[in-house]
């Protein structure tokens, strides 16, 4: 290799890194470093204003023996199950419904999607009044049917389902747009071929559309899980975990341990658990990248 070629190469590398540095530096300090710092701090007894004290895995041992922790984990997974699958199914149904042309269709799509451009706390404050005891719309509806007011946010059995209904309402329209783009990328030829073979309505959907949407479904499931694990805003507004931690979710618990109890060691431990959870549920993304699911 000639000297000038080596020089040129070096220059290109230098330029490459120089252009990267601003963005890379921020990502290193606020995404990579905090991941390692959480792992490190999870090994310390560390409260605000105190000197951190190394305690190896004691934080984990304490958490695993703590009933509140298990309650929060259970809530988080139950909430995920109550929201992810229903909002995916609903999202797909809505996408099928709005996958048409017409003057009104833009309006209908917007009607399903608009909750996604509202902040979660705005949604939570509106729904809090819907769910409010006695005077709230939901309780009034129950009363008008001759039932007892339910006060759903104060009951440990109904608080999570009530939040789940709100969240599915918000999330379905968001997932709808991914399904819509998936449906629209299915080639017309395939659908026509199915029609020639005599497939109609439900059959086309079941044996053609749905299998061809498998990669979309896989992708949508990862964003749906990630989105629902990172929820805390509505808990802060609506219940603060009440009654008796029945509505506490993992991110809210991290927030509460860190910023109400000022227990950085414990909240770092919870952060590590959250990261593990996110990693497990992001695995499908690796697969969807490496080998696309094909149905031919």
């Amino acid at each position, binding site marked *: 290799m000639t000297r000038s070629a080596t020089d040129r*190469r070096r220059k*290109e*590398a230098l*330029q*490459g*890194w120089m*252009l*990267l540095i*601003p*963005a*890379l530096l*921020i*990502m290193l300090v*606020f*995404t990579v*470093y*905090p*991941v390692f710092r*959480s792992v490190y*701090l999870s090994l310390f007894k560390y409260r605000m204003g105190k000197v951190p004290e190394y305690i190896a895995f004691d934080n984990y041992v304490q958490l695993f023996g703590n009933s509140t922790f298990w309650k929060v984990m259970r809530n988080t997974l139950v909430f995920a199950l109550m929201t992810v699958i229903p909002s995916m199914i609903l999202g797909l149904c809505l996408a099928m*419904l*709005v996958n*048409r042309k017409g003057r*009104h269709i833009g309006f*209908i*799509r*917007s*009607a*399903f*999607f*608009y*909750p996604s*451009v509202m*902040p979660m*706390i*705005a*949604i939570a*404050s509106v*729904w809090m*009044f*819907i769910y*409010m005891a006695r*005077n709230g719309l939901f309780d*009034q509806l129950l009363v008008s049917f001759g039932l007892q007011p339910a006060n759903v946010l104060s009951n440990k059995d109904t608080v999570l389902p009530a939040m789940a209904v709100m969240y599915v309402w918000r999330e379905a329209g*968001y997932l709808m*747009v*991914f399904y*819509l*783009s998936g449906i629209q990328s299915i080639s017309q030829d395939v659908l026509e071929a199915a029609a020639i073979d005599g497939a109609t309505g439900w059959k086309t959907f079941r044996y053609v559309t749905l299998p061809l949407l498998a990669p979309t479904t896989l992708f949508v499931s990862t*964003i749906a899980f990630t989105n629902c*694990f*990172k929820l*805390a805003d509505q808990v802060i*507004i609506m219940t603060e975990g009440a009654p008796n931690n029945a509505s506490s979710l993992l*991110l809210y618990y991290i*927030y509460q341990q*860190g*910023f109400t109890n000022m227990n950085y060691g414990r909240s770092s431990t919870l*952060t590590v658990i959250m990261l593990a959870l996110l990693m497990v549920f992001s695995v499908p*993304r690796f697969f969807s990248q490496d080998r696309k699911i094909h149905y031919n």
Partner: protein
Amino acid sequence: MSAKKIGSLLVTLFSIVLGLIWLAPLFWLVSTALTETTFNMSFFPHSPFTFKNIDYVWHAVPFGQYYINTIILVVVTFCIQFVTSTLAAYSLAFLNYKGKSVVFVIIFMQIIIPNDVLIIPNYLTLTGLGLIDTKLGIMIPFLGSAMAIFLLRQHFKTVPRAFGEAAKIDGANLWQTIWRVYMPCAKPAYMSFAVISVSYHWNNYLWPLIVTRSPQNRPLTVGLAIFAKSKEADMQWSNVCAATLIIILPLLLAFFIMQKQFMNSFISAGVKE
């Protein structure tokens, strides 16, 4: 009328009804915000129309200040992201050097780990940097956006190499090449990234809640949450609805005007792999 036509009409009717159900909370929010307070909540407000609630809330809470704060946060964040992401995307798209795969791993990490999950370590970092209760502190974790870098890189790659070469032969330097050739070609990507960035930061709550202490730095979302829980709100839904309306209105209007652009942006930002 054929059976097919009737079926299509029924589907249209059904989707309109379902759409109206979806719009109900918004309808209720707006109508409650704009009518006189009543004791019992009702879906169809029967009290007279009024701007009193909006007026009361606007003066009870420094929403003017919060508005300015949110606008500063949104605009400055986007502008800095615009520069950092463009440079990084160009570098990753066209320059050859070792270590790029490590950078992609970091980008991937940021895509799967939502910023909100890292509030504890990032709060400690921010304390160390002395940036608690500053606007820069709210913005700084977002100034290098993996999503934007990925999106722009993909669009840059679709620009024919000959365009860039031609600019170079004409004597354009790197900045001019990016500015004159690649940025205009990637306009749709920039639009998507702008929509996503602005809506994310307009609506962001948890991180600004943790970082801010004073009204001088608080964005709208944090202001709303504080108001909703305060004595001034008085557990009055008409006031809280009025406050909510004040903070969601700009983004919601923009969305209803440009709904297609918004939805496409969310798709392209999501499906980046």
